[in-house]
């Protein structure tokens, strides 16, 4: 009895979902593939949301478009190319490496290298400034005495 109840509760969310999402395709495999692709695409209306999560009308239309192209047998890359040719690289959450995105991709590493170089130069400079302290014989004896004292106590 208890097991049956648990099973029923497990099914509950899927019941609720089936009622809400009206543009779910009949084919769950295709739908999963569409969502997987749409998660990496930007919705142009609400720009920081993905095409998969956005509720805007344009996103719904674009999901429909992607679904239909998948049904026609186009590959993921062909669909991405289609959308990029319409909306530009901006639809991709992952910007491609191009001449004008070099700074975006490699700028942080360049900054890191520059910072490391700066650090090394600074450390070398400091090293040449710091001179070893010279102790006179008298000071060395006093230091040894002090150290011995603390050992005794």
């Amino acid at each position, binding site marked *: 009895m208890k097991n049956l109840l648990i099973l029923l509760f497990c099914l509950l969310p899927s019941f609720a979902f089936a009622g809400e999402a009206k543009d779910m395709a009949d084919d769950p495999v295709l739908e999963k593939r569409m969502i997987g692709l749409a998660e990496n695409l930007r919705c*142009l*209306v609400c*720009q920081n949301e993905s095409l998969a999560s956005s509720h805007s*009308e*344009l996103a719904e*239309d*674009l999901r429909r*478009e992607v679904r239909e192209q998948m049904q026609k047998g186009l590959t993921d890359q062909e669909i991405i190319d289609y959308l*990029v*040719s*319409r*909306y*530009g*690289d*901006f639809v991709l959450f992952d910007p491609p490496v191009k001449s004008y995105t070099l700074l975006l991709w490699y700028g942080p590493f360049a900054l890191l290298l520059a910072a490391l170089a700066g650090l090394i130069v600074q450390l070398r400079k400091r090293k040449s400034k710091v001179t070893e302290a010279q102790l006179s014989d008298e000071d060395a004896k006093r230091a040894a005495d002090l150290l011995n004292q603390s050992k005794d106590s």
Partner: protein
Amino acid sequence: MMRFIWPFVIFVTLAGFLYVGLHLNPHEVPSPLIGKPAPAFSLAQLHDPTKQFSPQDMKGQVWLLNVWASWCVSCKIEHPILLALSRKNIVPIYGLDYKDKREAGMAWLQEGGDPYVLSASDMEGRIGIDYGVYGVPETYVIDKQGVIRYKQIGPVTPESLREKILPLVAELQAK
């Protein structure tokens, strides 16, 4: 004194970037369709659904394709500007009624005036996707060969008309 220079330089650089960033509009995404042939379509005309409209019909002419809808709020802002432009007969304006109901679109034009030679109705928004439409209104300048030369995102303003669209139209018409 020297130790204050670097933080100061970094601050000024950062402030410079942020200042420029303040004036950028993230909603203006440059269209990859500029310089490419206008995507082909054939759609029923808004006022006479038995007739079709296709961009191929416009070969040999410079024309504007204005994407509008009766539900679009900023279309109201550009509407008087388009009306004034259509009265001057400089360049034909064709409309694309985007994701709209036929009756609503027709009523909207009757009420506010119709600047379009004709409008095509894209009720499901499919042609909009082909043209990379992501916000209404949008206006495309298309040349005699059917190539998209400019895209105005958002309402046409007197400034964009004076500084970009009209000089471009004159240049394209002279070719």
